[in-house]
């Protein structure tokens, strides 16, 4: 498999889409801390590194979808995946070579954001306010999440033979995941009660009544929503970007589970796939 990986990495080194994503992440890592500092410049308040350091997770999630669809989809559109099969490479090895290349690309994008952000942000901002344990936990999420997303998009790219279709599906999927995550977050944030004001027209007295919010999630339903918010990549993207997570230590584990399930499913389907 090493020769397949080597061929993929050489192709990656010359891939315009990869370098475009890489440069975008570097530019975002300059833009975010600078803009944050400018926005609070007149208030006398100084931003901390926490604010914006994990924003890269949101960007990288979208860019991985674009990159995996195009990079792996090219193997089908140019027909070059056939060259690997014809000369007798195992399908599992071919699958893993793309998976590892895509994971590497995703992590490289994430890494460049972190490094550039620290280089620009450290002189401009206050140090991290998070304790080391929490910081490491969020770094683990930021590493595992692109890995899990790469596994999902590699699976899609390996089982859908059309580059255009897989490109669209990957990008749509990540936006749907983020929209789903936003919706679940919105439902979880519903207040348990809300205040109902009533006015008496004659004497103008105002009465405040605390009423139960019918949209508030309770019991098993709340647990299911919370689990989905923690488990699904869209929810993880939001939690990591905003540093707001109730179950942060669980998220990397969930990403690991997503990685294993999508890779296993992808390999099973790809091994049985009729390639044209």
């Amino acid at each position, binding site marked *: 498999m090493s020769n397949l990986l080597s061929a993929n990495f050489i192709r990656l080194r*010359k891939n315009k889409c990869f370098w475009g994503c890489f440069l975008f992440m570097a530019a975002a890592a300059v833009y975010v801390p600078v803009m944050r500092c400018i926005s609070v410049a007149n208030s006398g308040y100084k931003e901390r590194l926490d604010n914006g350091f994990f924003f890269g997770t949101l960007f990288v999630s979208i860019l991985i979808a674009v990159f995996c669809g195009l990079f792996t989809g*090219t193997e089908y559109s140019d027909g*070059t*995946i056939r*060259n690997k099969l014809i*000369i*007798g490479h195992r399908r599992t090895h071919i699958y893993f070579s793309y998976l590892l290349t895509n994971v590497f690309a995703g992590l490289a994008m994430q890494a460049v954001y972190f490094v550039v952000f620290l280089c620009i942000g450290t002189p401009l901002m206050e140090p991290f306010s998070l304790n080391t344990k929490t910081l490491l936990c969020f770094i683990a999420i930021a590493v595992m999440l692109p890995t899990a997303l790469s596994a999902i998009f590699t699976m899609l790219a390996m089982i859908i033979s059309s580059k255009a279709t897989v490109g669209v599906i990957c990008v749509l999927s990540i936006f749907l995941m983020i929209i789903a995550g936003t919706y679940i977050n919105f439902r979880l944030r519903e207040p348990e009660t809300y205040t109902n004001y009533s006015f008496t027209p004659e004497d103008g007295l105002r009465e405040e009544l605390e009423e139960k919010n019918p949209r508030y999630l309770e019991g098993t339903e709340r647990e299911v929503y919370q689990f989905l918010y923690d488990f699904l990549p869209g929810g993880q993207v939001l939690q990591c970007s905003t540093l707001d997570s109730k179950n942060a230590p669980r998220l990397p584990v969930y990403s690991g589970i997503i990685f294993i399930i999508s890779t296993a499913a992808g390999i099973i389907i790809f091994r049985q796939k*009729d390639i044209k």
Partner: protein
Amino acid sequence: MEYVLKTNALKKQYRNYKALNGLNMNVPKGSIYGFVGKNGAGKTTLIRLLCGLQEPTDGEFSIYGINNRDKDIRKSRRRIGAVVETPSIYLDMTAEDNLKQQYRILELPSYDSINDLLRLVGLENTGKKKAKNFSLGMRQRLGIAVALSGNPDFLILDEPVNGLDPQGIIEIRELILDLNQKQGITVLISSHILDELARLATHFGFIDKGHIVKEISAAELEAACRKCIHLTVSDTSILSRVLDETGMEFTIISNTEAEIFGEISVTELALKLSAQNCEIKSMGERDEGLENYYINLVGEGARRYE
């Protein structure tokens, strides 16, 4: 005879459609095997199975004596080079980079032979031009160069001259002949262009509805294809009377045209016709050829297709 490829009752079914239906074929070592059949006959499906892109539904095949169910089939596939339908090349890479990619996945120790390979297919001067800017013929030749990267003993080419201009067709033909005659590479070549196949192939396999209708060598085909004399005369009724007298086999095409099979004495025939005031306007030898042989073999369906 030693065979590079043997298939036995090979079947491939896509849902309710039987693309291959008990196909038996044998490709002799050192041959150029012309694989003839109309669209949908199963040519490309067979090639996909041989290349490991798809798995057969039933039946078996062996490449260099190794059965497709044997795990060592991967080793025998290492001896194959193939261009399936379109050339498998990275369009955003140069010819040289494409070959380097193939060398890497083949784990070849050095790139030294890349220039020779590019020279062999006539792409040595393409420099930094990317494959997406190549003509169809250049892409096809690059596809063949990629297929030749591992020094294969068996080359499979699916419709290699499709869409090429006459010059491109000649170049590909010369390349295939060169590979076969100078390097001893066995070639399995599928094509619609029967005239082109007739110039190349040493053996033919005719496929229809997913099975081989006939396998024949070029020498046997030549013997089987009857030669005839095509005549244009002023009156074929006189011609038929004269030919009946001589006991020749013939076919009347129209009032003025006929075909005579077998050896004839042209002078004798001309004198006899002249004596009955029948003028010979033109005369020429015709070869039944691969096309007619194929049509006779596969039937009217093929004629409509042609």
